[in-house]
């Protein structure tokens, strides 16, 4: 059980890392892209905008602290 928990912690740290908000925004942005593509809109815009937004928010927040 302890080893399983340690492996889970490793996986979390490996993929999600220091700021879990990044992972949440990426998943939401992918969903939004799929919805926009289905609706025939310019879906390619969604991901770059969301990525830049969350990256700026994440690093500038560290800068503020």
């Amino acid at each position, binding site marked *: 059980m302890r080893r399983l928990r340690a492996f889970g912690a*490793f996986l979390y740290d*490996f*993929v*999600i*890392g*220091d*700021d879990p908000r*990044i*992972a949440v925004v*990426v*998943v939401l942005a*992918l*969903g939004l*892209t*799929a919805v*926009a*593509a*289905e609706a025939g809109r310019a*879906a*390619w815009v*969604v*991901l*770059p905008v969301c*990525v*830049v937004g*969350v*990256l*700026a928010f*994440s*690093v*500038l927040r*560290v*800068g503020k*602290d």
Partner: protein
Amino acid sequence: MSHDVLLFLTVFAACAVEAVEAVTIVLAAGITRGWRSAWAGTITALAVLAIIIALLGPALSNLPIGVLRLVVGGLLLIFGLQWLRKAILRASGLKAQHDEDAIYAEEVALLRAGGEERPGIDPFGFTVSFKGVLLEGLEVAFIAVTFGGNQHNVGLAAIAAIAAVAVVVLAGVLAHKPLSRVPENTLKFGVGVMLTAFGIFWGAEGAGAEWPAGDAASPLIAVFILLVSLGLVSVLRRRQTPAASVGAEAIA
């Protein structure tokens, strides 16, 4: 063609960075606890990695391309953004730079604190080498398998990964000390940009979006992400005060 060059360069740079970290750990273990244990730990870790790659590679290549691009693009994007975030914080002075000399000194102190070296295979030296090679190797495998799988060119990604590891190991053997001259922080910044750019490109395609420039969009996205990242570094540097620099130690 441009995709193949980008694929090779990205996988090579990412794997070289990870290999530098692994070589530093193995060097520290070998010098302080004996080479037999360090090599045994390294070889066992490489065998475990080979099994993981053998299981993961075919599983990924069996997925439909749309699903593969969505899942791998999303994972690469999350992974790449974390990498890029750290690189931006390092470049702006808010996080300590990756220093192989300091990491080596830290590992040596830790290994020396582990007590007397045991005859035969020293468990401490074995474990440190095994963990170092396995963890850094998993990152290498993740990048090579996802990039290669998505581009339907696992062979080229594997060649880039093996070439990077070979170059770094050879340099480590020749230098016999930590590879602190490798511009690791700059490489990490570049790799973070590339992982993020490919993640955006494949993730959006996997979700059903069509890029206006087609395949030519991926280098353009990379340039866009690079400019944004450099802009963020510049903003953070300008914002920094002496008080913030003190706070940076805590973050690092």
